[in-house]
């Protein structure tokens, strides 16, 4: 029996030796700096739905042939920051990575991205207010490929039947009055998305900022008045219960039933709205002026490379994709540069409204919030959900939210 035990130990040792060896080789197999000096550049984007025949892929190919390199596009990698980073940890950062704008600061904070100081990218032609999403502590980590934002769509047929003059809608109170008229006429008031995810915060921000509130103080009286506006709409039947679950897509589906007077939604539905005869105005703020809406859209970033000589070409790629209107057009965005916007307006004057709206818009991570935005936004959409569902009053919900933010960031 003793001998058997010795033998068993030998066997176990050999076996575990194999494990350790396998584990070690697994760890040590760091990918070689594969493309040093190569003219193949890698680009990650989060658009798996745009295949090789899409305008976007063609825009990339056009840039590649202009610069005289090849660009290997990998779609679908940058949809999830955490996943990106795990992949990146294997040592294979792409030359160019396109990242949803609120996540730029997260990646920058993790030390993944080069600044314009490192790579020499000139950002002077990029529209200031969109660019700030990529700026932290005065450093710029990327440029927007384009931007979209939110507006207040309305159905002229419904408003006319209800006797609402759209010119009268200038602030929260006049909009509420308009909604009441629409509901009195037998139609439904307004649809939006107050879902318990980032989308919910995105949709609430125009009203929040429009009331004069600031993301650094969720429990301010301005914030409470904005949330009370939304809560009362749901409570009084001016907005349906479904807003609590709506994504922006399902909210648009509701609007397209033709039953609703108003819908808060994005510039990406412009073509759909034009076809259906819907009109759009900027979301009214409390001061009677247009409220700043948050900007959406991806940033083009240049992740850190071992071979720093690659930055020069990467910068050319970024320039090529952002300078004119081809990149923005192919993705359905408003161009980030004045020149690009001019070209877009020349080919489609009806974009005028959205160019103005993007000019008035504000990135979510602005005011140097950076990575704090993620934490704040999570509490903000939770507060919206709690108030709209009747779980707590707007003031209580926001007070709880601010307390949670303080605890997390404190």
């Amino acid at each position, binding site marked *: 029996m003793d001998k058997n035990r010795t033998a068993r130990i030998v*066997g176990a040792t050999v*076996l575990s030796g194999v494990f350790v060896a396998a584990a070690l080789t697994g760890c040590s197999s760091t990918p070689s700096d594969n493309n040093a000096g190569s003219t193949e550049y890698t680009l990650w984007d989060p658009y798996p739905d745009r295949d090789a025949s899409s305008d976007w892929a063609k825009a990339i190919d056009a840039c590649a042939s202009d610069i005289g390199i090849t660009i290997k596009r990998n779609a679908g990698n940058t949809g999830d920051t955490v996943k990106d980073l795990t992949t990146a*940890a294997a040592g294979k950062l792409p030359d160019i990575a396109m990242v949803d704008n609120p996540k730029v600061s*997260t990646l920058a904070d993790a030390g993944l991205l080069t600044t314009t100081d490192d790579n020499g990218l000139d950002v002077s032609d990029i529209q200031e207010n969109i660019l700030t999403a990529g700026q932290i502590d005065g450093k710029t980590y990327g440029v927007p490929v384009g931007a979209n934002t939110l507006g207040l769509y309305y159905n002229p047929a419904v408003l006319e039947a209800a006797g609402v003059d759209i010119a009268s809608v200038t602030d929260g109170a006049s909009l509420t009055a308009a909604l009441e008229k629409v509901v009195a006429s037998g139609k439904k008031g307004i649809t939006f998305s107050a879902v*318990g995810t980032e989308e919910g915060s995105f949709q609430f921000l125009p009203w929040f900022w429009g009331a004069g509130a600031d993301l650094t103080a969720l429990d301010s009286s301005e914030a409470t008045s904005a949330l009370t506006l939304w809560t009362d709409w749901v409570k009084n039947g001016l907005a349906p*219960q479904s807003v609590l*679950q709506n994504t922006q897509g399902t909210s648009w589906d509701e609007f397209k039933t033709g039953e609703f007077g108003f819908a808060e939604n994005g510039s990406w539905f412009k073509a759909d709205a034009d076809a259906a005869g819907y009109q759009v105005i900027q979301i009214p703020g409390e001061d009677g002026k247009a409220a700043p809406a948050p900007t959406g859209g991806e940033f083009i970033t240049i992740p850190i490379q071992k071979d720093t000589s690659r930055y020069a070409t990467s910068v050319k790629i970024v320039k090529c994709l952002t300078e004119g209107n081809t990149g923005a057009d192919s993705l359905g965005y408003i161009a980030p540069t004045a020149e690009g916007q001019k070209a877009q307006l020349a080919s489609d004057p009806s974009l005028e409204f959205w160019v103005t709206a993007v000019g008035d818009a504000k990135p979510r991570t602005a005011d140097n919030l950076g990575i704090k935005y993620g934490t704040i936004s*999570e509490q903000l959409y939770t507060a919206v959900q*709690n108030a709209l569902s009747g779980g707590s009053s707007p003031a209580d919900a926001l007070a709880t939210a601010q307390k949670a933010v303080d605890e997390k960031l404190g």
Partner: protein
Amino acid sequence: MTAMQTVPRAAADGGTGGSRGVAPANGATRPGEREARRRAQRIRQQLVAWGFIAPVAIYMVVFYAYPLFRNLDLSFRDYTLASFITGEAPLVGIANYLEVFRSPTFWPALGNTAVFTLGSIVVQFALGLALAVFFYRRFPLSTTLRALFLVPWLLPLLVSASIWAWMLNSDSGVVNAALAVFGIPQVNWLTSPQTSMLGVLIANIWIGIPFNLVIMYSGLQNIPDEVYEASSLDGANGWQTFWRITFPMLRPVSAITLLLGLIYTLKVFDIIWIMTRGGPGDSSTTFAIWSYRLGFGGGSPDLSPAAAVGNLLIVIAFVFGIIYIRTQRTTEDAS
């Protein structure tokens, strides 16, 4: 181990006997050599044995032990996004667990997990058993009907959950439309903190019934007919037959069904996420949802607390697993 060794040893002895035709003459003079040979033989056998175990052992280590260990490790560190790059995550002891326990979400989430799990398995089990007994008596179309009851099980969860979310929609859902016929006012199934848990429970129970039905039905078929015959001779009525014969004799099957149901329901994520995303607020947030929210939901991933919540779930499932094994043992001892 003994069983494995017997066969190769017998074969090996036969082999050595044959090769050493002249051995008896020298054998007595060199016992050391023979001993050494035997040892080599034994080690070789052991290596072969380990070789056979290796595939399953490697599989277990790579797919079970290592991930579990990593999850534990993660929960005792402060793992941030930067850790992916630097590879550094300082050990923080039980700080993540303390954070989880102190979180205002902890008690609601624990309560919700308990309500969701117990509510689901009790109702699923009761309805599954009732249906199994119902279908046990064969009648025309019973097989077809029984097959139809399996449909919820065959549907992808994404489909079932989305359809339930539409049906329970406050304004335009078919459920509220049906209730309105009876004059019941609009119920905000998924958008009110009071009813959102009920909404996801209903959907989850519907999905879980077929599983209980199938297992209990096969359990019923293992009860010998003679017992029923004897009880009917003794004049037992239907109710007595069920409580005195069917139910007690289904005990082992019931126990495993409940345990599997428990473990399955504890980790339910997709249904709740699709229907309510754990909301409004925390009103339908279970541990599984909370763990996901912490790790991937918000803008700032709290990977380590998320791992801690995941481990709590594992512990809960483990405790019930132990309880199951212990009761199993006592019933075996008793019989």
